[in-house]
């Protein structure tokens, strides 16, 4: 799979990866050993029959390959692009022990794109059951659940508070990683199954909780959209953004095209991004594309960066400067940001998760300052309490996540289910999709009783 040249791609928001041609895909598929005990399947959070679909590619039966993937993954065009494959299927591929693993993600993407270009088949929809289900949120969890429930013939209404569906896929992940027409196609597929989408509906406000609970079942897929701030001095200066705000202004509101689009965003000289995950990489690369000089500050070591490997590599190629083992202690400026004071960090004994713990170094030398006009904090998100705090007796964990049964997604309230980031805290698209699918099945079973 090819990639566009860094100097070319930082000039626009078009997709960086160019994808496999059919010929490349078939060639790559021939590398798969079709292992007797496929490790890749175990690495996949939804256990797609990976050798199965790869064998179909090798026989040039792309339709069959698509059907095999779709049996377990509703959103292959998306997952093929954004899954952290190195930690999942490709990380467990036996070819990876000595050489390069099969490029499963790229193959998945190829199949999904092929299917989109050659006509998606509409799955069968069963007769109306008369059961009404409310799906709250239209991110990967919500759209997956809606599809699974609509196929069974239930009347599904998806409520979305924003003016566009897709959740993080729409407002968070930039189009150079995930083109928006792909997200739209996936959502349109779900709507074709008969699910109704109500945009601009904030459940808990536009739809009171009593009304919500009057549905036969409720699926909460409200995500983890509440941005965390570091809580340091200077955080409310002009020019300090949460990654969510910065990315929303650009991805959802198209502030990169201001003044053609009305929403502004500061496009000033020096941007400092704080954090090391996908959200930080996306913020840095978006800022770069708007002409800024970008420095990313991460408190652990480079090898600890939690973002997808490919995106770290892309960010480096695009000229993002990384300062690892450092953490901001103060944002400087009066009215507007002029710089960030940071402290160097050293790594100590591993913490409970086995990750080494960063601690600030002592002494004057440990502090340094960098100039900045804009600071973007990408240090984490938690579930937005807006709705879930209004539902009486809905049990929540310490980090604000809704507590659910692992298998069924059932919450502490009868007929109320939850899956995706709202249940797990910020995680991944594939996990949200997988959990939503399991939960939808549990709801379908429940309705049979």
């Amino acid at each position: 799979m090819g990639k566009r040249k860094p100097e070319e791609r930082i000039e626009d928001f078009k997709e960086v990866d160019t994808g496999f041609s059919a010929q490349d895909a078939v060639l790559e598929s021939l590398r798969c050993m079709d292992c007797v005990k496929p490790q890749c399947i175990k690495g996949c959070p939804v256990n797609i029959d990976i050798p199965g679909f790869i064998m179909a590619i090798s026989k040039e039966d792309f339709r069959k390959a698509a059907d095999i993937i779709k049996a377990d993954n509703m959103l292959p065009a998306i997952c093929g692009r954004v899954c952290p494959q190195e930690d999942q299927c490709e990380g467990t591929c036996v070819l990876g022990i000595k050489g390069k693993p099969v490029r499963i993600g790229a193959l998945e993407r190829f199949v999904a794109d092929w299917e989109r270009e050659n006509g998606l088949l509409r799955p069968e929809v069963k007769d109306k059951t008369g059961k009404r289900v409310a799906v709250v949120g239209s991110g990967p969890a919500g759209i997956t659940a809606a599809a699974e429930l609509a196929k069974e013939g239930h009347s599904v209404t998806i409520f979305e508070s924003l003016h566009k569906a897709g959740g993080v896929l729409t407002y968070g992940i930039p189009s150079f990683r995930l083109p928006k027409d792909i997200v739209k196609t996936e959502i349109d597929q779900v709507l074709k199954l008969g699910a109704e989408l109500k945009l601009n509906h904030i459940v808990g406000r536009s739809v009171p909780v009593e009304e919500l609970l009057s549905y036969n079942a409720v699926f909460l897929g409200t995500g983890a959209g509440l941005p965390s701030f570091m809580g340091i001095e200077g955080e409310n200066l002009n020019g300090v953004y949460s990654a969510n705000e910065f990315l929303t202004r650009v991805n959802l509101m198209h502030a990169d095209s201001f003044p053609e689009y009305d929403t502004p965003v500061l496009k000033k000289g020096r941007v400092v991004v704080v954090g090391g995950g996908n959200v930080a990489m996306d913020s840095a690369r978006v800022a770069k594309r708007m002409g800024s000089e970008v420095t990313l500050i991460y408190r652990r070591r480079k090898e600890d960066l939690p973002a997808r490997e490919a995106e770290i590599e892309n960010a480096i190629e695009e000229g993002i400067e990384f300062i690892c083992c450092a953490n901001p202690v103060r944002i400087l400026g009066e009215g507007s940001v002029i710089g960030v004071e940071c402290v160097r960090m050293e790594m100590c004994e591993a913490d409970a998760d086995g990750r080494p713990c960063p601690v600030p170094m002592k002494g004057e030398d440990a502090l340094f300052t960098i100039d900045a006009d804009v600071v973007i904090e990408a240090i984490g998100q938690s579930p937005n309490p807006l709705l879930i705090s209004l539902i009486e007796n809905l049990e929540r964990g310490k980090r604000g996540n809704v507590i659910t049964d692992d298998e069924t997604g059932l919450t502490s309230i009868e007929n109320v289910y939850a899956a995706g980031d709202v249940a797990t805290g910020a995680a991944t698209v594939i996990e949200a999709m997988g959990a939503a699918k399991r939960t939808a099945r549990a709801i379908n079973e429940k309705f049979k009783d």
Partner: protein
Amino acid sequence: MAYKIEKAEEIAENIFELWIKAPHVARNAKAGQFLVIRINDKGERIPLTVSGVDGDLVRIVFMKVGKTTMFLSTLGVGDFIEDVAGPLGHPSEIKKWGRCVVIGGGVGIACLPILAKALRDSGNEVTGIIGARNESLILLKDELSSFCDEFVVCTDDGSCGYHGFPVDILKKKLEEGSVDCVWIIGPAIMMKITSLATIPYNVKTFVSLNPIMVDGTGMCGSCRVTIDGETKFACVDGPEFEASLVDWDELMTRQKVYTEEELKSRELFEDHTCECGGH
């Protein structure tokens, strides 16, 4: 799904009211809440207070200050607004306070009728005080006064009612000891100055903060304000807060983040003569 404008009128100089059909907002909105609109696909999301409700219709009242509000003022009956989301924010704390004073400055006056009515319905005695630069900027006078037991109009130039500021009238009432609770809604500087008057009397005073917002649902943090030293998101934690706890200077600084961009947007719109909204 777009939302139809059912009534439209210029109700004071550069101040307009629109009644929009948006049942999901109208049926659930209470005093103190706002909605977010986006006029079309290229538009910005802007927050506006719910200033009235009639069946499935919801009223917004806005002043022409920049690109979006200028564009909005060109729309009329039968036109559509692409997105209307809401109601958002916490409703005002309506209960039996006793003797309430509601004060509006400029377009902030638009927030008062629904509030005064709610307070009245909960058994409060309501005094309405409104202030504007001159008579041509006074709005909703008759409607508001119908929900007030006492009603005073103030103008800076004396062209209508009392010659002076609402804070003068408020101070008098505070001295008389006849105030249990106060709402002040208007430009930040007016809320700051007016609310200073109530501090010595220790009277509960609410203000409705208007920082720059994007989603209005707690997802971005654009609307952060400092209340009693703590960061809050005005869209979900507010928009009404206890006046004495607000960091006013920070709010006013943050409102100016995009001054340059706003000017550019406005100039482009004003230079543009067709009906596409400058796009």
